[in-house]
């Protein structure tokens, strides 16, 4: 049998293998009976009972989602309850019943009117149509006595195929059983996609109508990285995907085969990512981007709010380390209440530490005070502060002086504080060149590979025309990484890496060979990287790194890596 490939939008960098289970929850209603046969009072009572039952279901699902995914994702169920209890819905259904329709038909008709109305609107409004359909289907199911197709109890290794998945559907998916899901409709920001990322499920959405050709039970590979769905996969395709899937979740720190402990941490963008990072076995947080605290609001967060956020993170990783990156905005990341300049080359402009030491020095002070206080909390985890976009020694000295100055202020004010670990992100070629001089100023380096590749190669990230250049396996990027690690050798400075490169398990051996002590990545790939660490021998890794470093082209680097995997 030949492989059939379908293209969609990959929403998680994970692959899964399993068998197709088509999920079609909407049962069509039979034609309504003659109005004279309908007892309006009885139907109204049935509707009210169904509404109570549906409300209970929603409350249970809300609770489960809040526990498993997060409070933000659970909030969607509040809106569902409100639609359920909406006076316009209640009045509408009662009117239809009075006209002689049974409860389920009355529900269907009433909701459909509003679904249509919302469908015609733009953006966020169209999402409300999805919510309404979800509530409608739930009520109709309860009324017609139908059991819900139990997504939570599918056979292990099922890949759910559906026209679309509602928030209620996705909330039921159990990552222990479901190998992934694929939908006909949907985009990267759909509810289903967000759930997939939070639950670390391989998923492809928006494949289109041709997905309907795929038969129930067919074997399928879901490639959430490339957005591909491969039906009847060839043995090789299947094996490659299955191997990736096998990584178990290790909640304890791991070591290489020859016993070198390597910290494998998670990158987080919002506080809601903390739980999933811990669930995937991250030892700590290697990159806590604090931008989210500042975005989408009218004024910056105050010291107290920041303090609480940092303490939450430390509590989540009470045995680990949490590396907080100070505010990294400028140019490409607009924030209304900051007066960010209009720049011709925002990536080369006033961003990161440049703003913190300049126009945003007030924000920097508030953030450092909150961090100094959080470091003294009894939350358990170790706090580390990291400066973004460093390019000179003076910047680091200046930032360090401020940290100490604010510590003195707190001392005078009689407020508890502790000096956190202090480090810089190595993401400019200047920082890599100056790494040796920086070692006396810092406790650690963390190499930010996305930006490092962009600046070393002078190839803008996100610009597809130069994506080939911006690749982190370019020999120039590898040499910049090596230069940074070399500078730290023989000192107490530890070197980590955060960014896409650290999360690529095919590169783990190479990175350990280059001498990295810590790797930090999006939570989803933590288990694969931990697995790769345990399979690495540092002696072999060093040899591999030497070969890669002597390569003169990216193709040669790739060849070195491929040959190594084969042998």
């Amino acid at each position, binding site marked *: 049998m030949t492989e059939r490939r379908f293209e969609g939008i990959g929403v998680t960098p994970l692959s899964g293998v399993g068998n197709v289970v088509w999920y079609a929850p909407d049962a069509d209603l039979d034609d309504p009976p003659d109005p004279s046969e309908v007892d309006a009072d009885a139907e109204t009572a049935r509707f009210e009972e169904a509404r109570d039952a549906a409300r209970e279901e929603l409350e249970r699902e809300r609770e489960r989602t809040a526990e498993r995914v997060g409070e933000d994702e659970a909030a969607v169920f509040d809106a569902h309850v*409100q639609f359920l209890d909406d006076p316009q819905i209640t009045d509408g259904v009662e009117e239809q019943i009075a006209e002689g329709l049974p409860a389920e038909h009355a529900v269907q008709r009433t909701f459909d009117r509003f679904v249509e109305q919302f469908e015609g609107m733009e953006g966020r*409004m169209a999402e409300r149509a999805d919510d309404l359909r979800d509530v409608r289907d739930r009520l109709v199911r309860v009324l017609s006595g139908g059991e819900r197709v139990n997504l939570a109890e599918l056979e292990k290794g099922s890949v759910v195929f559906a026209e679309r998945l509602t928030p209620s559907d996705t909330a039921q998916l159990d990552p222990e059983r479901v190998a992934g899901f694929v939908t006909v409709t949907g985009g990267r920001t759909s509810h289903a996609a967000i759930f997939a990322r939070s639950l670390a499920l391989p998923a492809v959405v928006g494949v289109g109508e041709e997905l309907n050709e795929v038969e129930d039970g067919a074997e399928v590979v879901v490639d959430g990285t490339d957005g591909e769905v491969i039906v009847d996969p060839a043995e090789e395709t299947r094996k490659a995907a299955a191997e990736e899937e096998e990584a178990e979740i290790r909640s304890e720190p791991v070591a290489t085969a020859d016993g070198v402990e390597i910290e494998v941490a998670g990158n987080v963008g919002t506080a809601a990512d903390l739980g999933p990072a811990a669930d995937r076995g991250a030892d700590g947080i290697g990159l806590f981007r604090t931008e989210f605290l500042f975005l989408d609001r009218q004024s910056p967060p105050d010291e107290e709010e920041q303090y609480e956020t940092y303490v939450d993170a430390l509590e989540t990783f009470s045995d680990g380390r949490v590396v907080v990156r100070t505010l990294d905005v400028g140019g490409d990341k607009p924030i209304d209440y900051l007066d960010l300049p209009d720049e011709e080359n925002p990536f080369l402009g006033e961003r990161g530490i440049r703003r913190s030491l300049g126009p945003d020095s007030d924000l920097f002070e508030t953030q450092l005070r909150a961090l100094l206080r959080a470091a003294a909390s009894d939350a358990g985890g170790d706090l580390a502060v990291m400066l973004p976009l460093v390019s000179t020694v003076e910047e680091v000295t200046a930032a360090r002086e401020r940290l100490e100055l604010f510590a003195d202020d707190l001392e005078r004010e009689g407020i508890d504080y502790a000096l956190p670990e202090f480090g810089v992100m190595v993401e400019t070629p200047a920082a890599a060149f100056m790494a040796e001089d920086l070692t006396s100023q810092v406790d650690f380096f963390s190499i930010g590979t996305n930006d490092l590749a962009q600046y070393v190669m002078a190839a803008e990230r996100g610009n597809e025309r130069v994506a080939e250049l911006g690749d982190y396996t370019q020999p120039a990027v590898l040499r910049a990484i090596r230069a940074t690690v070399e500078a730290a050798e023989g000192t107490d400075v530890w070197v980590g890496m955060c960014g896409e490169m650290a999360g690529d398990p095919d590169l783990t051996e190479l990175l350990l060979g280059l001498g990295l002590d810590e790797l930090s990545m999006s939570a989803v790939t933590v288990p694969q990287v931990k697995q790769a660490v345990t399979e690495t021998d540092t002696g072999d890794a060093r040899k591999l790194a030497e070969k890669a470093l002597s390569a003169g082209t990216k193709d040669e680097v790739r060849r070195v890596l491929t040959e190594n995997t084969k042998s």
Partner: protein
Amino acid sequence: MPERVVTVVPEDGLHARPASVFVETANEYDSEVKVGPEDGDLVNAASMLSVTGLGVSGGEKVRISAEGEDAEEALDALEEVLSTPEDEL
């Protein structure tokens, strides 16, 4: 009837979570509360359908009115919801 005009702070306007909190708050008071465009027709503020159906975006002004014994308290509470950024709700 007491009423006031408020600028909607949550960036996404009266959708999803902000709308949900708004409707929930309206339901907590005995007064009959309505909401709508600054110079247009008002709808029932206790109805999620009506409120999200308005299609109000962040930065827009809305008029809220309340009739009943706790009208002022209801308006205070709703004004507070509308003036709070989404991530603080």
